[in-house]
């Protein structure tokens, strides 16, 4: 009776320790991913150093599912730069090219007009009502580099959230059932 009791106790304690270790390891992985993301934000100077191209308005250069690397420096915005901006009231960032720039003397205030390479008209229709120009605070970053196809993972996960749940469920299962 005492032997059984001892064995049961030892089994219980091992399980708890193993579970705790696994939980801490998982926490470490998530935290280091977060640290890398925040560090990228600091280095590039923009709130979203990586964006996924969601529409075909910059084809054939950027197709849906491509990933863009952004930076934001204090350099003034000039025509030809591919900028990522948010329109007031909408939270989906748009990636288009600046085609007109008017920069004020002294204040450095700048009016920017953008257009997608594959669009026939400029973006005035996309801006808020009564807005004809973008200003610096609308612009989140400039595209400097690009990787094709990698962004499809994000698009699939946001358009079919069931896949997100399946993935997280599978990952959780893997963590629990793995022996180390």
């Amino acid at each position, binding site marked *: 009776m005492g032997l059984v009791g001892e064995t049961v106790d030892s089994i219980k304690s091992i399980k708890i320790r193993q579970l705790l270790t696994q939980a801490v390891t998982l926490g470490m992985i998530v935290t280091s991913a977060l640290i890398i993301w925040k560090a990228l934000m600091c280095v590039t100077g923009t709130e979203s150093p990586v964006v996924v191209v969601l529409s075909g308005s910059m084809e*054939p*250069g*950027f197709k849906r599912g491509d990933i863009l690397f952004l930076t934001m420096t204090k350099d*003034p915005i*000039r*025509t*030809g*730069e*591919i900028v990522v901006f948010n329109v007031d009231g909408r939270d989906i960032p748009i990636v288009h*090219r600046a*085609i*007109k*720039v*008017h*920069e*004020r*003397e*002294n204040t450095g205030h700048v*009016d920017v007009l953008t257009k997608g*390479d594959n669009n026939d008209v*400029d973006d005035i229709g996309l801006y808020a009502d009564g807005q004809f120009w973008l200003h610096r605070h609308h612009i989140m970053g400039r*595209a*400097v*580099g*690009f*990787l*094709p196809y990698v962004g499809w993972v994000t698009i699939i996960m946001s358009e079919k959230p069931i896949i997100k749940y399946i993935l997280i469920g599978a990952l959780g299962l893997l963590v629990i059932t793995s022996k180390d």
Partner: protein
Amino acid sequence: MHSFGYRANALLTFAVTILAFICAIASFSDNFSNQTPSAQIQILNINWFQKQPHGNDEVSLTLNITADLQSLFTWNTKQVFAFVAAEYKTSKNSLNQVSLWDAIIPEKEQANFWIQISNKYRFIDQGHNLRGKEFNLTLHWHVMPKTGKMFADKIVMSGYRLPNAYR
């Protein structure tokens, strides 16, 4: 250690690492290309030059653009985006850049071209400062790679001038 799961995981990680490495090298190799582009722009005609009802000057031009951008293409180039912008200074604005025309050049063979068109995008000022204005025409290009870092540069051509009176 030898289960299917571990092997698949190791294979996938290795494949992704190698792919990322190849992309980085491909992009890095773009730094070594020798680029000697050339261009010339002529203003053939000022079609019209007026002050619009909202008070801003607008001018319509016919341009003759000759350029050879073939040396910009490398094996890692997907397309070159070329555009011509008019740049000028006014009393209100220290810099104005207005894109007049652009084109996507998908292949090296199409990068040596001659084209005569009127401006694709409207040349409108913020104000009515364009009479007698001197401006530069700049041919910009933006090399968009198959993967990696994008490069942009330009050729500035100066000495253009708008007429002193509306017509």
